[in-house]
């Protein structure tokens, strides 16, 4: 295998602590406690190593990254190296002074999650009273501070009817971008799949609506659409290819090719506390495992699309096929594609009571 190129981006989960308890959270089911988090000096060292390695963008995420009191210091350090900083926040209990301070430190962009277009849905999903109003307040604060704003709306059966409302909300809040992101089913979302999976008809209506809105709003609002895997023809190029140009770091310093990679049991991860980031990027066993195309089996191995989608999502292959080197079952060429459609069909046809979520909490699935 040829040597890897330089990586472009890192998703840095600064903490797993979060005031919200969304049942599709992309954090692992086994959440890390505060006392395992990397300290400030370690993060600053890692981000310097990242800039040396060619990293151009860092997505500061969580959990809720604003719970880290050293966030300003981290943004300053990245900004000093010319790295593009994107804050990914739930936007509850974030003070206006803090937003302004982050802007002063060189923060480039804010991505705010919105669980619902109405207070009822936001509170149902995040399991927090008053969350909706706080989010709107944060969005206004971001624009007031002169920072650009993206709204990220994860879509599932409880808000798939609100897509049009999310578009109007994005415009009302003067957002530059809106992400309509259908939930991907691993981790917490897999635990809650029955409660979250939308119905086929609703998915189809959503696709039409988003396409029409993109056309109508061309040049006015940028809408990124993460399509639903379970109803796809071809898989997504997850992370743009395994360890190809982006990776992530967990709160305790574990470097992983994607945020669900821990669901593949045989992978061996390195920690940024023990090794230089350049060494991890070049030779971490977990990064090497599915890098490039040499690991592929059929039908991926001889497929014309193998360097477009890199076989799709390894974690979804693990979850559905029981083999992380299998073709992502989201692909219509996968022998398990029918199984995936059957799961989607069975799941969404059941009447799932809304209050039946396993909410994301530390210790729940430990």
């Amino acid at each position: 295998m040829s040597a890897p190129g330089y990586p472009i981006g890192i998703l840095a989960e600064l903490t797993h602590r979060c005031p919200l308890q969304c049942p599709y959270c992309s954090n692992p089911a086994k959440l890390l406690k505060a006392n395992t988090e990397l300290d400030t000096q370690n993060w600053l060292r890692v981000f310097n190593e990242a800039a040396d390695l060619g990293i151009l963008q860092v997505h500061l995420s969580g959990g809720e990254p604003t719970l880290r009191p050293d966030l300003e210091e981290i943004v300053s350090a990245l900004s000093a190296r010319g790295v593009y900083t994107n804050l990914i926040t739930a936007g509850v209990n974030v003070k206006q002074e803090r937003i302004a301070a982050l802007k002063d430190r060189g923060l480039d962009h804010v991505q705010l999650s919105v669980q619902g277009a109405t207070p009822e849905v936001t509170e149902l999903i995040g399991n927090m009273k008053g969350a909706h109003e706080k989010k709107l307040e944060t969005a206004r604060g971001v624009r007031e501070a002169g920072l650009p704003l993206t709204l990220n709306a994860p879509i599932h059966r409880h808000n798939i009817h609100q897509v049009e409302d999310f578009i109007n909300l994005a415009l009302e809040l003067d957002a530059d971008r809106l992400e309509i992101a259908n939930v991907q089913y691993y981790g917490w979302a897999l635990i809650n799949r029955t409660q979250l999976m939308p119905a086929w008809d609703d998915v189809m209506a959503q696709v039409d609506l988003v396409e029409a809105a993109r056309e109508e709003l061309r040049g006015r609002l940028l809408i990124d659409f993460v399509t639903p895997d379970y109803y796809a023809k071809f898989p997504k190029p997850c992370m743009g290819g395994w360890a190809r140009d982006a990776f992530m770091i967990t709160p305790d310093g574990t470097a992983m090719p994607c945020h669900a990679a821990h669901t593949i049991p045989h992978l061996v991860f390195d920690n940024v506390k023990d090794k230089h980031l350049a060494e991890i990027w070049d030779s971490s066993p977990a990064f090497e495992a599915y890098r490039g195309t040499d690991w592929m089996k059929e039908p991926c191995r001889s497929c014309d699309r193998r360097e477009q989608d890199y076989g799709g999502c390894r974690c979804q292959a693990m979850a559905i096929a029981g083999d992380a080197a299998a073709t992502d079952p989201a692909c219509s060429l996968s022998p398990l594609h029918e199984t995936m459609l059957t799961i989607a069909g069975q799941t969404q046809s059941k009447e799932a009571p809304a209050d039946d979520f396993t909410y994301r909490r530390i210790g729940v699935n430990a």
Partner: protein
Amino acid sequence: MAITTTRKRLVVSEATKPRLPSYVRLHHDAVRGAWALLSPEKVMWPDEISLDILRRCDGASSAGQIVTALAAEYDADPSMVHDDVMEFLQTWADRRLVIA
């Protein structure tokens, strides 16, 4: 669809004075020895001609002036440069990577 907004699409003309929005940055990447365009979710690697246009999107020069300057620099037919530059700017404006 019931969309309510007063926000307008930028229709690029010769009088438009294009600039990069605050969330888009041209950055010289020392590791790769190349110019990168950094935007919220994407890093792009503009070619030389794109870079020549983007560098002139300073909010002071009009699209017409950018065409004149580039035609002189490339010793090219201004009418051809005109069409290329206008098309480029409109495409980028529609992706909200260039504003005015």
